[in-house]
């Protein structure tokens, strides 16, 4: 495999981990985080700084950065999981701007707007692939667990879910924290792959990008979201697409607008790869399609 492809695939795998997190939040629970990329920034910067400036070894640094991101997620999630789902989008957006401001400001520690350089390159292709597979399998199990089903229930109707005895506040928090953990881990891998991070690459556009990927492939299907992330990350990397690089966001946006207007369930709808192996599920999926 050529170096170009290894590079593209590694980047795709890192994105897949983050998108698996966004799928838990947006696909399963119907919440939108427009500051999700800021958690990636926390993962990237904290682990990078611990390794470069404080000479920690890789894994403790990654662990601490993920734990810190989850703690931050808990602090900003705590007031808003009890409220309408709009609040989590608004608050995370504000969080993203704050993190960007902080990174730009703390120049001594973060290098400011010009970026943080000199992170050792420790993310190998194998590590990225393995992490992506584990993340996706983890989310697949989460989806089929009690928690995942409760997420889907409250996405449809919070009031009804509450009436059925689901602790809506708690489930929303669990989904949010799981997605934060995955995204910040992706951030750490990203930092140790790129060996350079800058605040500008973690803006709301990146968070919006991930949401778009999830919806492109199919918001109700983990397979679809993964596929969406794969296609939309790979496309702009291909040599013949480079010329269109500046139109990338425009093309994405047009694609998604078409999907929302004409096939709102995304490319794959409710279909999951595992459906191939179960007939019963297939029928159930078809039924729920009809109801919609």
């Amino acid at each position: 495999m050529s170096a170009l492809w290894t590079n593209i695939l590694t980047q795709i795998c890192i994105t897949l981990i983050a998108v698996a997190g966004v799928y838990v939040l947006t696909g399963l629970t119907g919440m939108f985080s427009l500051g999700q990329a800021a958690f990636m920034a926390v993962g990237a910067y904290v682990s990078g700084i611990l390794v470069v400036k404080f000479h920690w070894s890789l894994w403790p640094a990654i662990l601490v950065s993920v734990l810190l991101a989850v703690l931050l997620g808990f602090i900003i999630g705590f007031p808003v999981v009890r409220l309408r789902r709009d609040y989590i989008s608004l608050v995370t957006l504000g969080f993203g701007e704050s993190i960007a401001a902080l990174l730009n400001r703390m120049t001594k520690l973060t290098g400011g707007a010009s970026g943080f350089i000199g992170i050792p390159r420790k993310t190998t292709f194998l590590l990225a692939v393995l992490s992506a597979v584990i993340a996706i399998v983890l989310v697949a199990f989460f989806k089929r667990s009690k928690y995942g089903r409760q997420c889907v229930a409250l996405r449809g109707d919070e009031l009804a879910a509450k009436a059925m005895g689901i602790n809506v506040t708690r489930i929303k928090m669990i989904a949010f924290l799981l997605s934060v953990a995955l995204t910040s881990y992706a951030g750490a891998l990203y930092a140790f792959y790129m060996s350079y991070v800058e605040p500008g690459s973690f803006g709301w556009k990146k968070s919006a990008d991930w949401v778009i990927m999830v919806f492109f492939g199919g918001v109700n299907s983990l397979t679809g979201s993964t596929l969406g992330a794969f296609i939309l990350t790979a496309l702009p990397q291909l040599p013949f697409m480079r010329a269109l690089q500046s139109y990338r966001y425009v093309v994405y946006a047009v694609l998604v607008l078409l999907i929302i207007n004409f096939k709102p369930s995304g490319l794959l709808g409710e279909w999951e790869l595992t459906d191939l192996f179960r007939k019963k599920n297939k029928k159930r999926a078809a039924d729920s399609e009809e109801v919609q």
Partner: protein
Amino acid sequence: MSLQIIINGIATGSIYALIATGFALIFNVLKFSNFSHGATMTAAAFVAYFLVAVKGMGLVPTLLVAAFSGGLIALFGELVGFRRITLNHSSSTYFFVSSITLGTLYEGLVTVKAGANFFSFPQFFTNPTIRAGGLVISTSDAAMFLISLVVLIVLAFVIQKTRLGRALRAASFDRDTAQLMGIDSTRIIQITFVISGMLAGIAGTFLGIKYTLYPTLGSLVVKGFIASVIGGLGSLPGAIIGAVLLGLLETLFLVLFGSGYSTIATFGMMLLFLLIRPQGIAGSNIQEKA
């Protein structure tokens, strides 16, 4: 708090008020947070910049063109992004995605056209500052404050006193019932988008004058969102009060902590506020309705 901080804070707050009311209008009628608002501001301000401001015409023509193009952009957004999902009564997640996508689209188009450069509006006033006693007020701040005030008064008049405003309030209370009472709610939604877009255009131009114009200027919309949250989502008076409060706090924090940290301080304030009084100053619906 010195008088100077209060004056600067109110000037900033008046721009935030324009953003927050434009956002709240849409929230009122369609019950979703319109994340394309920021990019609409940027796009409209860029149109006004290239069509009018660089040709040396004054502030008023620039604002008129910005308002007009903001209205057009929002109308286009309603048509391609929201019309079908409104008519299908789709779940609110689709409104989110549509608005995020439209935001990406506008920002992408502006970036393609303008590059990642910074543009400054020409100086609109011959005297950059007004001195009154020991106070220094920038002329453009004063003009922005006055214009925002006039715009908001006109908006309040339209919403409270006209037939259109009554229809708008009815539709935001209950769209389906309003439709049964003979109100064309699709038309009302269109008009709401146009008004919101016009506010966005004016606010975008003001932000451009204050901080120079660049493609990601729209991210300042977050100030309007914070103001909305403090004031109570969807409440217009709340949005204005929240915006002025935010402007004052931010200016105070700027003096106390310097830039950068003031952003974090205001964000912390918002979290604290949500913890203590989640319904906002004006009180609004905070729970997900069936």
